[in-house]
């Protein structure tokens, strides 16, 4: 009996869709056979090759046009594709710039660390100054509970926070905290925010830094 050959036209489809469709097709073969996938970029060829070889298949590719490649993944036996595996495929683009980081700094007190509050205030001031010296500034600084004092008038960190805000860093201070401490009228940098936004920023961050 002739082996099954499936053809997928994945031209115009963004990574990782060609890999996802090919992987599903390999699983659907349920035995020896081939999947030929037509793609329009070389990165997709590389990703398909990596996926196919990772599944123990033979992979060949041929450039058939200026923006057309045929990638053939040949399985000598049934390829096991776990439930959810195709959906878990991520796009790997060699040489591409890394995705921008979304660093959020959560400042929860006027002091950094515990022990001596006088020292702790100096350390927090030093930390916020150090943020200004980073090559890559954080995306957001959220200030809550005692940290809310730092974005208000009289704060020793105000100049640094203002510089960060004016450089594109989102500076958010908890409105409930400002009200609690009776300092809502003294907010001097950034915006007042609420817990929904704070929760969104913290959960949406690639990295949360809490000094």
């Amino acid at each position, binding site marked *: 009996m002739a082996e099954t050959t499936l053809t997928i036209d994945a031209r115009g489809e963004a990574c990782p869709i060609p890999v996802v469709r090919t992987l599903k097709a390999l699983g659907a073969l349920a035995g020896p056979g081939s999947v030929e996938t037509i793609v329009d970029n070389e990165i997709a060829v590389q990703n398909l090759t990596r996926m196919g070889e990772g599944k123990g298949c033979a992979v060949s590719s041929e450039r058939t046009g200026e923006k057309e490649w045929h990638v053939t993944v040949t399985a000598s036996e049934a390829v096991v594709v776990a439930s959810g595996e195709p959906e878990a495929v991520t796009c790997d683009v060699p040489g591409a710039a890394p995705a921008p980081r979304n660093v959020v700094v959560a400042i929860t007190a006027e002091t950094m660390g515990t022990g001596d509050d006088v*020292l702790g205030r100096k350390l927090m001031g*030093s930390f916020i100054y150090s943020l*200004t010296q980073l090559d890559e500034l954080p995306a957001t600084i959220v200030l809550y509970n005692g940290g809310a004092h730092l974005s208000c008038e009289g704060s020793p960190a105000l100049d640094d926070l203002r*510089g960060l805000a004016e*450089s594109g860093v989102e500076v958010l201070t908890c409105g409930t905290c400002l009200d609690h401490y009776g300092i809502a009228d003294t907010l001097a940098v950034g915006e007042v925010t609420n817990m929904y936004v704070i929760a969104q920023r913290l959960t949406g961050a690639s990295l949360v830094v809490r000094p």
Partner: protein
Amino acid sequence: MARVRVPSLVVSFPTTAAAMACEECCGRRGLPGRMIPLPGEVSAGCGLAWKASPGDRDALATALADDGVPVEAMTVVELLEFVR
């Protein structure tokens, strides 16, 4: 807002207490500057330092000597500053 590297005077101290004494001294005398963490270009150690303009070196040295604040070194390094 842009950040540029600006030559800055960094005063380092043998102890954290001396750095805090410098802050008190400068605040009382109205001398310019601010506390920063000791930059790595000055020392690999961990500590607090006083940052001011290079032109403030003599005034700071005199004031700190008068108040008996021990100084480890005065170094000029380039630090990032916001330019408004």
